[in-house]
């Protein structure tokens, strides 16, 4: 039994002749924030819709809480809170009235649930302003309030900071982080803004043109993107032996038959070269590298950047 709250297996969606999502294997662990990062139109929303059963799956499987959602909606949906695309509400009603409708539909038993949800997102309770008069940011906040109204275990948030001002973005980010750290909520969040995901997510999935290019923890990704010395040599085992003995090197990774990454950037590259050459290891190239997350994203998406 795994501890994945969401698991997709070879998830594929084809619209007529266009493949929107191609064999995606997604793994969202319990109590963690999973950031789905990709450009606009990469397939993030389609994946979320398929997870929620809001669009049909061409092939593959989705398990939520270890169950296939189809036929289990009554048990699974009450455990999920979502925002998919721009949240829609009744324009002739106030925020409180709108949430009261959803609260009634869900049978939310908790007293003051509506008041608490509005308070969390910074919207006034029993305000007279109608939803139709709300700004995009306020609408987005109300969408988040609706998603958390019934205290779900899993939140699926599709670009929740869309339309928010910078302060609002920071507030929502802190709030989402807080939900995960203090209340143990599992959160799947999508964004096309790299900095958002990097500040928020514990795990990250990079999607491009419907293909999940990379799935790893943020710490692993940061490791991949930190400063390192790139060394290309003729004999890797021998070079490693020399570096371990002579430079007490521990933090490194072997990339291929000729490439090494040394993460201890305090080392003197000149000394390393000298030492290897004197012990008959040919140094093809050496240098200091510094990949940012954006560089990494560009690299794995084939050169296309992200906001």
């Amino acid at each position, binding site marked *: 039994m795994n501890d994945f709250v969401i698991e997709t297996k070879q998830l594929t969606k084809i619209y007529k002749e266009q493949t929107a999502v191609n064999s995606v294997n997604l793994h969202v662990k319990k109590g963690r924030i999973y950031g789905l990062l990709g450009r606009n139109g990469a397939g993030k929303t389609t994946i979320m*819709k398929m997870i*929620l059963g*809001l*669009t049909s799956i061409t092939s593959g499987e989705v398990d939520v809480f270890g169950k296939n959602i189809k036929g289990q*909606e*009554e048990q699974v*949906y*009450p455990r*999920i809170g*979502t925002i*998919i*695309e*721009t*949240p*829609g*509400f*009744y*324009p*002739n*009603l106030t925020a409180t*009235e709108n949430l*009261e*409708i*959803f609260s*009634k*539909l*869900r*049978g939310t038993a908790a007293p003051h649930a509506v008041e608490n949800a509005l308070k969390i997102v910074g919207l006034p309770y029993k305000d007279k302003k*109608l939803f139709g008069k709300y700004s995009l940011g306020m609408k987005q906040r109300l969408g988040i309030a*609706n998603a958390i109204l019934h205290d779900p275990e899993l939140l699926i948030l599709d670009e929740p900071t869309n339309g928010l001002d910078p302060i609002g973005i920071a507030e929502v980010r802190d709030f989402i982080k807080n939900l995960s750290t203090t209340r143990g909520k599992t959160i799947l969040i999508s964004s096309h803004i790299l900095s958002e995901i990097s500040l928020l997510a514990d795990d990250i999935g990079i999607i491009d043109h419907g293909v999940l290019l990379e799935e790893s923890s943020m710490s692993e990704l940061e490791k991949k993107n930190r400063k390192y010395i790139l060394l290309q040599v003729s004999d890797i085992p021998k070079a490693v032996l020399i570096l371990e003995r002579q430079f007490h090197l521990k933090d490194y990774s072997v990339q291929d038959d000729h490439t090494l990454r040394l993460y201890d950037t305090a080392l003197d590259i000149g000394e390393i070269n000298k030492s290897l050459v004197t012990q008959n290891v040919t140094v093809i190239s050496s240098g200091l590298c510094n990949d940012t997350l954006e560089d990494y994203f560009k690299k794995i998406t084939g050169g296309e950047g992200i906001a």
Partner: protein
Amino acid sequence: MLRLIQTEFLKLRRRKLVWLMLSSALFMPFFALLYFRYVKETGGDPIQFYRWSAFGYTLWFILPVVLGTLCTMLMYEENQHDMLKQLWIVPISKMEYFFSKFFVVLIYSICFMLITAAASVMFSVLPGFVTFEWGSVLYLLKKCLEIGIITSFVMLPIMAIAASQKGYILPVTITLVYVFLGFILMTVNMYLHPLPSMAVIVMRNGDIPGLVFTQAINIPLAFLCICVWNIVAVLLANIALGRRK
């Protein structure tokens, strides 16, 4: 289901058109008041007055058009504002959703006809066109309730069409075509269209003057016609809502 119906009414807050359409229930009683004041005399027969105030254009045009517009309104808002996906993941079943809206139409239709009935009594008794009699008032109430209930079922196909459309122009246009078609088909075959079939059921005893049926009255056939249309409507709604994500 009851919870769903309650929320359907909550959604109608501040919708002026709902009240405006309800006020049209007074139109024909008021018209009848003017008619019998200046043109014709009732001769003390309340049925003559009710024929104009409640059983004439209200039955054939006003109520069906009002209900068709209401069906469109109820469906349009959620379609237009892309709310259905939020409702499906509550979760709400598509058919519960459809029938909760139907119940709103049913209750609205009954209220509409009760207002018509009350206005008919007021506008006929107060000016002294007819004398107040419990018998005729109860007869009017009974007929108005029948009309209110059956018309809501008759308008179910419009609700299904509204469920399948994102806009409101097509459902409203189809409402008008549907209503006029019913009126035209009355003289051709009363059992082809739900509206003339409803008229057959309501006027089955021949106690409403002024309407002559071209065919023999067949109540089961009239019910069958309404049922067939409604079954098709529910199937259509099920398919249409299944596609709406």
